[in-house]
Each structure stands twice: as structure tokens, then as C-alpha cells.
């Protein structure tokens, strides 16, 4: 029976090549999309699953208030917690990632993402060593861990134990271990790890074991069954918070963040960059599913549209003795065959498109067909697609009454038409939704790019201070000031890009003693406001003597929080970090964090020293300016290569995740529309076929081609319009939600909907009228003769 069914299915497949290729094409594209998305989702949700103790590791995170949650915790606290709480096995601290200059075998190179880590780093995390001893690799203060790739690149071998590496032209470290490749699905990405004991020589947090400075990432390993429920977790957090309250006057709440949640469920500040977003994972999962459904709808539509052709066969089989379930089986085996063929094509497509997709998603996904897990997933996709897409035609076709269909042409019922129209509408609802989504994302990304941040970000370049530069800042200032190309410069402690500072230690007259507000701060020199072209609302900027006078410049928000009018803030006293001074100026609010965050109160104090030199270049003289800088830099700091960045590029880079999502979204929106149109194309072809005679008669009676095209397209256009009406509120809600994640966002506007409507209508129109034109231009004699 099955063999027979398959044979018939195969003959049908071959005989109606055009129809089959529409079906297979649509399903294959849908499947390929789903497979790609699933690969991506699988990768995103596999982060940090390779750690042996993964389930017992938690990261200690600090919450200052609703607006400020940070991934960092105090060094002393993390170190002492395991002694205070018996369920804690151990703790590991990691410094914030930093950049340093390394020298190995006579070659010098910059390496970013370098960490200091406690000596039990390799006990807690599972990063296997291929050389060295995990137990003591990070014990000596002059040990250093490097990865396999790094070792190969700079030593030409992985056998690098005992080799020397000079760091920042200063201390020499000895390789004590070579790590295997760091899995790409680790939230910690590094090439070099240095021992915390080295850092502890100089860092005051470590020396004093402080509990009130937040500068380290703290990971805690708990006992195996210490936490089995959400209740256990909150009890543990409570315990930690109690301990903290005893030790510190700050009102900070701590959370334990499971290791495996860090990649997708972290929206903390001062976090290791490169996070995913669970929201995007969910959105894409839905998109994958929806695209597959859209493809299935295609199949259903085409199959039911073709039903008049197959009705005779059904009737006959019934007369001969087929039961309904046998017919259902037959049609299902047909759809399964189609879906299997589609799967094969889809696999080919995935292989073909994976490099492009990887490029788009900035991933290194691999599609390993040999894995049983992949096989099961693919099989499930094919089975699901086959069953879903085959179910309606199977039930519908097998329900025909034999007498009716054998007597002549089958008239399709109103219900059937209604159902099919419903399917077309739902396809276009999806397409319009994705289209509007694409537009909104695009506009928001553009908005981010072009938003006036409160300072002029173009033509700004900055150099980080490195090596000898710190001591030679005065010399640098003199040199920069002498050249007309570089004289417009400022020295700052932090860039207004993703400010990571924050202090509670601030007092002003009339402050409520219980009020705890976090004030980010920037230290800058007297040229800061000019170089960044910020707007001073009242008062003045810093002068040469501002440092001694403890002058402060605050932003509008800060003035508001202090309860001061912008114009009355000048001259008011302010104590920041114990230094009492006065407010000399109020600057208009500017964004110093990504646009997801609101503008917080900011305090700026004067300092002639800082981590960055920011230079405003003259228009069209960037390369000249750079060569001047190169000259200055190499004379002052010969050991280091000149490293510079453009402010606007660095700011844009903060939205990489959003941009990636935007472009992936784009592609899938286009594909959804394409698949829908394939279905529409097939459907219109069948409509035209069914109305062939009518078209002939109308033509003989004098209808023009345009009139006929209009007649044939009108019904479809109504469906697309209806889809648009249904999709509009959905898109409004969904995109509104997405935009709410940005403190600064565009408003959804009517023209976005209008554009989506015009877009989908014209694509659908083009698809349908192609068929309609063909029919309208055919010789009417042909259609009339066939009856």
C-alpha cells in the first residue's frame, strides 16, 4: 500500500513539474531559513554549557537601583564569601578586560581582552590546558597563560612552557600553561590570562580587600546540591545581602546570576562585551516557525486549488473501495514525499548559504549533517512540514462525495474558498508584519546613528594613554598644542560612549540624608566642552585653576536631582568624593551611555591627566592629522605603536547587536514575502485556469485586457489589504515593545505602515497580474473550443 502510494505520489510529482517545483521551492526556502535560524538559536543557547561545574557557578552582580545594575562586585567580598558561607566551595575573581602590549620572540603586538584571574580560575572553569599544570599555572605572580592559537602565532609552536613574554615594556612573565582553543560559545573570550597575584601587588582594592569598590567580576562555585530551586537561590542571595549590610554602609543588593544565563539573560552595565539577547533568540525562534508555516500554507493552498483536478481520482478511488483513511494516507504520503524532496534541497541551500549567514550574524556556525541530533531535528522538520501542509488537502480532498465528482466538474464550496483566502491572508499578515518590523528597526538604527548626542561626534579621534605616555602627558600636550592640525584637543578620564563610573559619595546642601543617588563622573581638562562642542547652559567651563578650587560642572539632570534650577545652580557648593567645591557650570544633557539608557546625573571635575587624548580634526585633513600624530607619538612613546579610534565609529560599534538583528530581520522579511508570492503566483495560475472560459467569453464580448487583469487581480488585492489591516495593530504593539528597550527611540509613524502597504500590494499585484495578463491576452477561440 505504502509503496503504491509513494509510486503515485512520485508520478504526480513528475507529471506536474511546474506545480511540484513551486511546492518544493517554497518549502525548501522555508526549511532552509528555519534550519539556519535553528542553528543560530542552538549556538546562542549553548553558551557556557561546556563547563563541568557549570550548574554550580554563579556570578555575583550588584544592583544599586533600578537604573543601575552592574556585573561587577567588590574584590574583598568575593574573596571572603566562601569563608563566610559554608555552601560556597570557592570563588574566582576576574579583572575587567584590558588591553596591553606584549612582546614575545622579539615581536610586539597589542592584545585586547586580557584578564587577571585568581589562581583557581582553571579549577572552577573548564578551560583545558594542553601544556602545563592547571593546579599551579596561575600561582606565581610572573606566570602567564596563553591560548594554543596565540602560542602558535607568536612562538610557532604550542610547546611554549617556560618561554618569556614582556608585558607593557616592563615586567617579564613566563608561560606556565597553554590553553586549548577557547570555545566560541564561552562568554569569556581571551587569548591571555595573567595571575591576580601580580595585580594584587599594586591594586588597592586587592591589597585592602575592599567591600565597597566594584571593580571585579566575581564568580562563586556552590556545593553541588546547594541550590535546587528558585527559593534556595533567593535565600542564598538574602544571606549574601545580610553579610554585606553588616560590612558596608552602601545600600546595594546582590544577585546570583547563573553562569549559563550570562550570555542571553544579562542586561547589566559594566559587563563583558559580546552578549546575546534572549529576546532576539525568542523572536528568531518565532520567525523560523512562522516562515515554515508560511511555506506550509503555500502547499495547502496550491493543493486545494488543484483539487478540482484530483476530485475525479478521489471519487473513483472511493467507488472502487478506498476508505477515507486510505485516501488521507495517500495524500499525506504525497506531501511527505514533497517535504522530503524539499528537505534535500533545503540542506543544499543551507550549505550554500551558511557562509553568507555567518557573515550576516557574525558567527562561526557549522552544519554537521552527520550528527544524530541534527538528523533528528531535520527529520522532525520534514515530518512536521509534511503533516501540517498535507493535513488540510488530505482531509479536504478525501471528503468528496463520489457521485458529485464523477458526474462532472466539482464546484468548490464557499467554505473552501473562505479557508483558502484565510490562508493567503495569514501569509500576508506575516509578510506585512516583517516588513513593518524591518522599517521600524531600520529607522531606529538610523536614528541612533544620527541622533544629536549633545556633542558633535564626527571628526573626533582619540588615543588611549599607554606605556610612557602617562608620564609624558605634559609633553604630549605641548606637542599637540603646537600643531595647528592637533591643537584642538582635550585630555579626559573617560569617553562619553559607555561610561562605567558611578559614585554615591556626593553631598550637596539640602540633600536628603537617606537619598542614595548614583552619580557617574568624568574628569576632564579645561578644553573638554569646546572640543566636544557641548552646550554650556549657564556658568563657565573649567579654568587652569579649577583643579585646586574643586570646581564642578554638572549636567542638567544632575541640577534637577539636586533640586536646583539650571540658572541658580552656579555657585552652589558640592562635595564629591570628599572634595568640597562649587558648581561653576551647567552643561546641556548629553548621552554618555548607549541610547538604551536614560541620561543620568553627571558630575565633571577638572583634571589635566586622563586616559584618553581626544582630538577634533579639521574637516578633510584626517590623514594629515594622523601623520602628525604618528610623529608626535613615536617620539614620545617609541615602544608602542600608535593606536587611535574615531569617536563616531566606536559609538556605532555599540549597536552591533541591533544592527545584526536588523540585517537578519531584513533578509527573512524578504524571504517571507518571496515565499508568499510564490504561493500567490501558483494560486493565481489556478484561478485563471478555472476561469479560462469566462475570460474567453468576456473577451469575445469586448472586454479589454486591462479590464480583465483588473477583474482577476481585484480579489487578491482585497486579501492583501485585509492582511494589512490585521497586521497593523500587531506590528504596532510588537514594534512598540521593541522600541521601549531604548530610552531614546523614534515614534512609529503612519508612513511606515503606508510604505509597507504599498510595498506588499505592489509585489502581490505584480505577481498576480503576470498570470492575469497571460490569460487576458490568450486567443479566446482556444478557451471556448475546449468545452
Amino acid at each position: 500500500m505504502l509503496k503504491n502510494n509513494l509510486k503515485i505520489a512520485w508520478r504526480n510529482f513528475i507529471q506536474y513539474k511546474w506545480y511540484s517545483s513551486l511546492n518544493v521551492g517554497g518549502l525548501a526556502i522555508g526549511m532552509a531559513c528555519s534550519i539556519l535560524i535553528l542553528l543560530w538559536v542552538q549556538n546562542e543557547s549553548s553558551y557556557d554549557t561546556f563547563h563541568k561545574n557549570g550548574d554550580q557557578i554563579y556570578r555575583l552582580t550588584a544592583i544599586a537601583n533600578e537604573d543601575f545594575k552592574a556585573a561587577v562586585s567588590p574584590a574583598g567580598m568575593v574573596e571572603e564569601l566562601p569563608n563566610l558561607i559554608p555552601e560556597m566551595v570557592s570563588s574566582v575573581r576576574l579583572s575587567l578586560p584590558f588591553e596591553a602590549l606584549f612582546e614575545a620572540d622579539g615581536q610586539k603586538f597589542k592584545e585586547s581582552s586580557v584578564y587577571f584571574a585568581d589562581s583557581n580560575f582553571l579549577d572552577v572553569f573548564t578551560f583545558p590546558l594542553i601544556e602545563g599544570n592547571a593546579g599551579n599555572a596561575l600561582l606565581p605572580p610572573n606566570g602567564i597563560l596563553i591560548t594554543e592559537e596565540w602560542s602558535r602565532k607568536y612562538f610557532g609552536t604550542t610547546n611554549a612552557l617556560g618561554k618569556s613574554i614582556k608585558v607593557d615594556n616592563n615586567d617579564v612573565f613566563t608561560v606556565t600553561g597553554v590553553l586549548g582553543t577557547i570555545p566560541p560559545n564561552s562568554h569569556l573570550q581571551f587569548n591571555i590570562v595573567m595571575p591576580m597575584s601580580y595585580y594584587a601587588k599594586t591594586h588597592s582594592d586587592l591589597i585592602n580587600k575592599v567591600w565597597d569598590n566594584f571593580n571585579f567580576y566575581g564568580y562563586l562555585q556552590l556545593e553541588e546540591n546547594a541550590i535546587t530551586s528558585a527559593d534556595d537561590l533567593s535565600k542564598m542571595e538574602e544571606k549574601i545581602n545580610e553579610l554585606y549590610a553588616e560590612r558596608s554602609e552602601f545600600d546595594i543588593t546582590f544577585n546570583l546570576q547563573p553562569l549559563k544565563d550570562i550570555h542571553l539573560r544579562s542586561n547589566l552595565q559594566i559587563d563583558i562585551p559580546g552578549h546575546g539577547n534572549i529576546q532576539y533568540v525568542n523572536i528568531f525562534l518565532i520567525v523560523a516557525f512562522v516562515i515554515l508555516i508560511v511555506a506550509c500554507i503555500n502547499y495547502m493552498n496550491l493543493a486545494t486549488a488543484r483539487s478540482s483536478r484530483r476530485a475525479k481520482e478521489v471519487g473513483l478511488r472511493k467507488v472502487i473501495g478506498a476508505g477515507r483513511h486510505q485516501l488521507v494516507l495517500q495524500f499525506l504520503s504525497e506531501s511527505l514525499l514533497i517535504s522530503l524532496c524539499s528537505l534535500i534541497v533545503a540542506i543544499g541551500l543551507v550549505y550554500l548559504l551558511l557562509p553568507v549567514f555567518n557573515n550576516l550574524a557574525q558567527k562561526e556556525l557549522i552544519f554537521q549533517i552527520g550528527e544524530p541530533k541534527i538528523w533528528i531535528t531535520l527529520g522532525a522538520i520534514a515530518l512536521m512540514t509534511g503533516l501540517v501542509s498535507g493535513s488540510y488537502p488530505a482531509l479536504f480532498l478525501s471528503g468528496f462525495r463520489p457521485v458529485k465528482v464523477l458526474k462532472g466538474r466539482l464546484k468548490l464550496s464557499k467554505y473552501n474558498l473562505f479557508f483558502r483566502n484565510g490562508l493567503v491572508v495569514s501569509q500576508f499578515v506575516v509578510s506585512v508584519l516583517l516588513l513593518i518590523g524591518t522599517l521600524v528597526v531600520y529607522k531606529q538604527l538610523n536614528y541612533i546613528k544620527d541622533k544629536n548626542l549633545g556633542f558633535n561626534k564626527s571628526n573626533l579621534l582619540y588615543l588611549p594613554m599607554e606605556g610612557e605616555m602617562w608620564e609624558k602627558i605634559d609633553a604630549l600636550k605641548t606637542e599637540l598644542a603646537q600643531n595647528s592640525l592637533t591643537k584642538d584637543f582635550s585630555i579626559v578620564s573617560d569617553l562619553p560612549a559607555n561610561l562605567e563610573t558611578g559614585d554615591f559619595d556626593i553631598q550637596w546642601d539640602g540633600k536628603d540624608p537617606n537619598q542614595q543617588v548614583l552619580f557617574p563622573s568624568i574628569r576632564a581638562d579645561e578644553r573638554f566642552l569646546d572640543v566636544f562642542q557641548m552646550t554650556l547652559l549657564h556658568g563657565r567651563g573649567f579654568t587652569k585653576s579649577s583643579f585646586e578650587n574643586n570646581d564642578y560642572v554638572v549636567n542638567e539632570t544632575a541640577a534637577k536631582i539636586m533640586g536646583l534650577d539650571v540658572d541658580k545652580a552656579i555657585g552652589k557648593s558640592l562635595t564629591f568624593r570628599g572634595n568640597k567645591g562649587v558648581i561653576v557650570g551647567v552643561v546641556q544633557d548629553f548621552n554618555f551611555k548607549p541610547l538604551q539608557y536614560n541620561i543620568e546625573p553627571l558630575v565633571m571635575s577638572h583634571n589635566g591627566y586622563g586616559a584618553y587624548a581626544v582630538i577634533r580634526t579639521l574637516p578633510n585633513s584626517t590623514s594629515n592629522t594622523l601623520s602628525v600624530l604618528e610623529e608626535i607619538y613615536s617620539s614620545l612613546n617609541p615602544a608602542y605603536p600608535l593606536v587611535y579610534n574615531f569617536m563616531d565609529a566606536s559609538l556605532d560599534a555599540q549597536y552591533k547587536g541591533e544592527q545584526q538583528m536588523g540585517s537578519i530581520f531584513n533578509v527573512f522579511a524578504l524571504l517571507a514575502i518571496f515565499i508568499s508570492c510564490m504561493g500567490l503566483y501558483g494560486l493565481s495560475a489556478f484561478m485563471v485556469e478555472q476561469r479560462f472560459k469566462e475570460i474567453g467569453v468576456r473577451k469575445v464580448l469586448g472586454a479589454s485586457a486591462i479590464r480583465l487583469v483588473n477583474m482577476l487581480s481585484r480579489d487578491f488585492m482585497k486579501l492583501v489589504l485585509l492582511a494589512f489591516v490585521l497586521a497593523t495593530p500587531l506590528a504596532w504593539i510588537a514594534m512598540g515593545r521593541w522600541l521601549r528597550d531604548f530610552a531614546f527611540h523614534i515614534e512609529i509613524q503612519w508612513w511606515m505602515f503606508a510604505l509597507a502597504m504599498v510595498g506588499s500590494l505592489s509585489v502581490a499585484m505584480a505577481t498576480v497580474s503576470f498570470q492575469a495578463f497571460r490569460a487576458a491576452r490568450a486567443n479566446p477561440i482556444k478557451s471556448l473550443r475546449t468545452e
Partner: protein
Amino acid sequence: MLLQLKNIFKWVNSGGQRIFLLKDINLEVQEGEFISVMGPSGSGKSTLLNVIGMLDGFDEGEYTFLDEPVHSLKEKHRANLYKEYIGFVFQQYHLLDDLTVKENLEMPLLYKKFKGTERRAMVADMLDRFNIVGKKDLFPTQLSGGQQQLVGIARALISSPKLILADEPTGNLNSKQGEEIMELFKELNQEGVTIIQVTHSEKNASYGSRIINLLDGRMI
């Protein structure tokens, strides 16, 4: 007695009026009969045949087939009954174009769950009996009308039904082909198969043992 129709009525409502397709039909058919149903177009011949074949229902009356009360049987039960005992032959042959002659013959057996070896034996038997062994791998469109109808009859016969219902079996054939088909029916009837055929031709009707005349849904 093979089947009995008692006071069968069938109607459709059209524009508030009741139009009778069958009116008070009373008919008894014994096993081994060869009945020809005659009458002008629209007199209800095909409707009667469809009612007998249980492909179509009726609105009033009783229908007993092999002592089973068809009028009170469930759809599924009724389908089983006609699958088992009735074979259909159509004017337009109604062979499946996608299947070869052999596969067309095999189809009813597939639905009755015969084993592969049995099926092959039965198909071979039928091909042999109708002298179409050479055509077994051809598709219906490659055959002449007479040959197609031959396959149609072979298909109706393959599961050895008690009753064959033929709706103008020679309607699309030329006179020579038609004659051959009628001879075949006669032979089958002599072997014991009950046949009810609808026909327009007096000559074909004369092959039968009894003629029923219909006019406007009534037996006359």
C-alpha cells in the same frame, strides 16, 4: 433475493418547489438477473443506479441489500457493503490516468488488503481472461475506447462482486466495440454475476433478461 427497493423517493428542493428525481420505486432483483434500465434523458436512470450502488442516498423508502437494511445503515457500513459486493462500470471508463492498466486493476485489491502475491495472481488472471496481457504496462490514454472499457470492466470484476452496475457502458464506443462489450456482459451473466445496466439502445437492452422503463422518476 439480491436486493429490494420499496417505495423509494428521492427529491431535491429548487426554488421552493420539490422536484422528484425518483418517485415510488419498487423493485426486486434476484441473483443472476440481467436488467436493463431504459428511459429518456432526465428520467432518473442514473440516479436509480447510484441509489442501488449506494453512492447516492434517498429521501424516503426502504432498501434491502442481501437482507441488510441499507436505509438504516451508517455511511461506513454502507461503504463496506458496496465495496464487497458491487462493481461499477462507467460510460467514461473512469480509469486513473496516472496508473498503468495493471495498476488500475490492482487498485481495488489494494484497498481490500489482499497480499502482494495474491494480488499479482488475480491481476494476471484478469489480464489473461480479457486478453489484455500485452497492454498491462500501458497507460489508459494509450488505449482505444473499447480497450479502456474492457479494463474498466475487468477492474469492476476483479474483486468478484455479486452485482455489476453499468451506466451506459457502451455510450462512448462505436457499434462494434459496443457489441463486444455486451457479449462480454452476457457471458458474465451466464457465469452468475447479476448485472444492472442503464442504456439508451433497444438493442443493448435486449441482451438483458428484464427491462425497466423510467419516465420522470417513475417506473412504468
